[in-house]
């Protein structure tokens, strides 16, 4: 797909209320095609909740989320089921890793390719030639994705037995396997050592440059955020308090206040 027509995401006046708690309060975010954008904020600011609203895990209380198709108009997605939203090209990782932990690394990625395959129950039982070829194709494709994420040495390992950093990368690999145009990463380097963090930073850049996937990431690791992202949104107590380039954000007094407290 050409960059001009590539869909982007538009979040408008989003609010999410849990009981009495306003986890997100009137937030508007606009993701541009091909950028790496970060969403930061202190613990409990509502970052993950925004991801959950975008990906359909929660139904937002108010506001709209839309995929912009450029000239072909926009498509509202708020409140749709997570699997539908994923099919539209949004994929995510989870802050508290949610791998299919008793399955192998390769199988985890193969599940990501679910919707690029067709075989139903009868085809699966018959296992005709087309199905066999399809199956071989998904194995090869998954293998390629794993190589890109430098996980190919773990292929037959049970996901639960992977080192922590590798589990985080596997989550990204699995999300990439669904062929997204927008990848939502929830704290991708949490728990990683500096070496791993550095490597993941490169990987994130590669995903954007080579795979042409737009990235929105939540992260507490400020050096990663500042290095990798072109634009940053800052959230505090559910409200957007700043938006801008890394340099803008670094010098913003509101942001400093939110992080340091008063």
């Amino acid at each position: 797909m050409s960059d001009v027509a590539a869909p982007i995401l538009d979040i408008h006046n989003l609010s999410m209320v849990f009981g009495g708690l306003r986890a997100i309060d009137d937030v508007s975010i606009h993701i541009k095609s091909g950028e790496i954008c970060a969403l930061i904020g202190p613990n409990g600011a509502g970052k993950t909740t925004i991801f959950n609203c975008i990906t359909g895990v929660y139904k937002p209380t108010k506001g709209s989320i839309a995929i912009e198709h450029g000239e072909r108009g926009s498509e509202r997605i708020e409140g749709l089921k997570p699997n539908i939203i994923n099919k539209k090209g949004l994929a995510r990782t989870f802050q508290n890793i949610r791998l299919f932990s008793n399955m192998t690394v390769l199988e985890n990625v193969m599940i990501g390719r679910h919707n690029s395959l067709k075989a139903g129950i009868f085809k699966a039982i018959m296992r005709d030639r087309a199905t066999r070829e399809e199956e071989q194709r998904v194995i090869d494709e998954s293998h390629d994705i794993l190589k890109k994420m430098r996980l190919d040495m773990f292929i037959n390992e049970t996901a639960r037995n992977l080192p922590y950093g590798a589990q985080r990368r596997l989550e990204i690999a699995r999300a990439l396997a669904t062929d997204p145009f927008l990848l939502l990463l929830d704290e991708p380097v949490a728990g990683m050592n500096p070496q791993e963090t550095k490597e993941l930073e490169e990987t994130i850049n590669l995903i954007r440059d080579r795979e042409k996937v737009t990235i929105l990431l939540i992260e507490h690791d400020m050096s990663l955020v500042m290095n990798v992202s072109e634009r940053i949104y800052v959230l505090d107590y559910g409200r957007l308090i700043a938006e801008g380039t890394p340099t803008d954000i670094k010098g913003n007094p509101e942001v400093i206040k939110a992080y340091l407290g008063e």
Partner: protein
Amino acid sequence: MDYFLKLFLSGTAKGSIYALIALGYTMVYGIVQLINFAHGEVYMIGGFVALIVGGFFFTLGLPVPLVLLLSIIASVIFSSAFGFTIERLAYKPLRSKTRLSALISAIGISIVLQNFVLLAQTEKYLSFPSYLPELPFLLPVREYINSTQLIILATTSVIMVALTLLIKFTRMGKSMRATAQDKHMAQLVGVNINQVISVTFVIGSALAAVGGVLICSYMGQINYYIGFIAGIKAFVAAVLGGIGSIPGAVLGSFILGWTESLGTGYISSDYEDAYAFIILILILIIKPDGILGKNQKQKV
């Protein structure tokens, strides 16, 4: 109206017995997320101990109220000990394993206890002599409610209040609530998980024992198999109310008692055991977490 009142009252009595068993189910579930299939058997054990110990003291010629008291005490002690032993033997080794394996272990215990009682005692139905007193002031209204029913109701109410107070205000109660919420965190703040789990089983079993004595006195008979159906129904009651919730278990039990009583009275007694399941399905379809269950939006 008259007929309705009668059915309603007998449903209430029945519901309060279900409540005694359902409480144990719900407490255990709340703390270790285990469907304790053997809980019904503990209740059956309670009934048997009361029959045996009561019979022994009765033949010694002790006065009836004393026999009643001793048999209830014995039944509570032995059932609690059984509950404690079952947990240590069959559930504790599986605590870190899948929940399915603990469930199978529970079913295994259920089979073992049933057959143990069958072999050690009898497979026949035994009639259960009631030591519960006749309350003279109930004579005029005995068509509606008899002494046994009233005693059941009163006992259950007292126990319920006591249990609520225990869980709300004592240190152990606090530990139990903490463990139910988050086992790991509770351990970090110094709660002794093993102890809490044991106490939960002991309390649950003690309640089941009281339930066992009362319902056997009410029905007038006992058999090694009575625990199974009662256990399932109590579990249904606990789920109805929202499993893990103590007021939920009580409410669910009453709803179950009323449904069964009114269903058999007005519709047909052929389906006595089915009403429990039908009402369960209806309620869960409307409220998937039970009536008082927390609608937990899973945090992602």
